[in-house]
């Protein structure tokens, strides 16, 4: 359909259009910026409700749920954001997400690499227990998260019996041929006198060698984690060197 020239539009209509548009922009910029606050994380709906809301697309809905949950910690001062999160709700969201898409590794990855890294022991233990319980449901598919949980239990919580329990669970339950031998032998590494960096190197190196990490985002994330550990280790070593050793008198 051919349109009439712009001059045919009354000036009042044009003014209304321009004014309303400016008013909309002004209104938008006077509103507070949208941000997901940790204290606003609500408990997730029940699993049947989520299944209903997914309209037959549980996998897509599960991925969206993970991105939604991630929005509550993906902000400045990550550690502080994690501290503020209600871990009962976080665990409930992770459990629902994994129930919607049992093949997904995302919730366990987030539990082990993000939420369990918080400097709050009860919260860490909650996350590690969640990973362990989920591992038992599908050991051959979920051993990666428990391997990292083992390392956290050993080096962060300094709880050797707990780390041994997890390592033993991997050896006993993750028996599929695709599970690498180093993962099945984690109990041995635990007993050796290794620091966290050495342990992380074995974990990451083993994962990379076995071709288990294919996702570029995950690769980058773990690489950055390793670099961070190396820097922390170097700083610790430097501090030790600078500290004068106690003079022993004969």
């Amino acid at each position, binding site marked *: 359909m051919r349109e009439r020239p712009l001059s045919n539009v009354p000036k009042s209509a044009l003014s209304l259009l321009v004014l309303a548009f400016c008013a909309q922009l002004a209104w938008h910029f006077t509103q507070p910026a949208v941000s997901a606050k940790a204290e606003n994380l609500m408990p997730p709906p029940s699993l049947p409700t989520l299944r209903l809301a997914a*309209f037959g697309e549980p*996998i897509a809905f599960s*991925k969206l749920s993970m*991105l939604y949950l991630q929005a509550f910690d993906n902000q400045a001062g990550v550690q502080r954001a994690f501290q503020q999160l209600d871990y009962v709700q976080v665990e409930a969201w992770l459990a629902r997400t994994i129930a919607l898409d049992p093949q997904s590794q995302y919730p366990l*990855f987030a539990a082990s690499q993000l939420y369990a890294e918080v400097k709050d022991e009860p919260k860490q233990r909650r996350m590690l227990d969640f990973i362990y319980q989920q591992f038992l449901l599908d050991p051959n598919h979920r051993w990666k998260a428990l391997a990292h949980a083992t390392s956290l239990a050993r080096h962060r919580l300094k709880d050797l019996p707990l780390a041994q329990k997890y390592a033993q669970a991997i050896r006993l339950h993750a028996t599929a041929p695709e599970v690498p031998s180093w993962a099945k032998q984690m109990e041995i590494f635990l007993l050796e006198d290794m620091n966290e960096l050495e342990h992380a190197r074995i974990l990451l190196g083993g994962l990379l060698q076995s071709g288990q990490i294919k996702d*570029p985002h995950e690769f980058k994330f773990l690489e950055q984690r390793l670099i961070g550990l190396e820097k922390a280790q170097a700083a610790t070593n430097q501090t030790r060197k600078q500290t004068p050793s106690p003079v022993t008198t004969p």
Partner: protein
Amino acid sequence: MSRFGLFTLLSDFIYAEWSILQINNVKDNFAISPHFMHKQISSIAIYTVLEALRNRLSWLIIIVLFIGVGLSGFLNALALTESQQTQVALLAAFLRFAAAFLLATFVVTSMVREFNDKGLELLLSLALPRAAYLLGKFLGFALLAIVPACLFGLLTLLFSNALQSALWTISLVCELWIIVAFAMLCVLSFNQIMTALSATLGFYLLARSITALQLIAKEAQVETSNSQQVMGALMNAIAAVIPHLDQFTKTDWLVYHTGQLQDLNPIAIQSTICVGLLVGAGLFDLYRKNI
């Protein structure tokens, strides 16, 4: 399509009808041979497809495709792991819903406009059985459904292997055929855009969530109150008469590569039965209409 387009279509159609009549020398009460009816169905189907193509539907499909890629690409960037799986899952879910929505909207608006412009009356005043009209329309829309399904299916090839994409595409075609048949039935029953479109989308969402509803009803039945028993029975009754579209066009195939050729068997059988039922209901309704 513009009014001019509709008149062109009708005049073309009348000319084609006249030509066919001349060739076949049909005289006595416009007796229709099966061969003649096939030609009529084909003519209507071709003009239905032409109408869609002239209606810039293909541009709309391409725009939807780009929106899907952009949106899923944005969400991919947010994911810490399984980024490609996240992208393909969300892209597939978006494209599936968009294809159904676009096609249902086109079917409903196109048929309602034809009713309002008295195009149907004009066509039926020719030697055209009502069945030929309805089957021709269905065939045209069904052919049209292949266009978005194939385009979207080709896009999924970027994230998945050929077999899984093919399964997803074929299943999407079957799903769209069911939607087309239901939308046509709704138009014949309601004759109004808003009612027909709402009913079609309601049916689509119900068919995609019927298994979840059945599970909820079953859980509720643990407490055996009468109302819950009735609700459970009602849910089972609905589930018995509508297709379970949550079993169609599974995202699992693209994300985890779990699809096999045999998975298409129940989908093909269900689609055939459901389309037959809906077209049958449409014919029943159309033959009873006093036009």
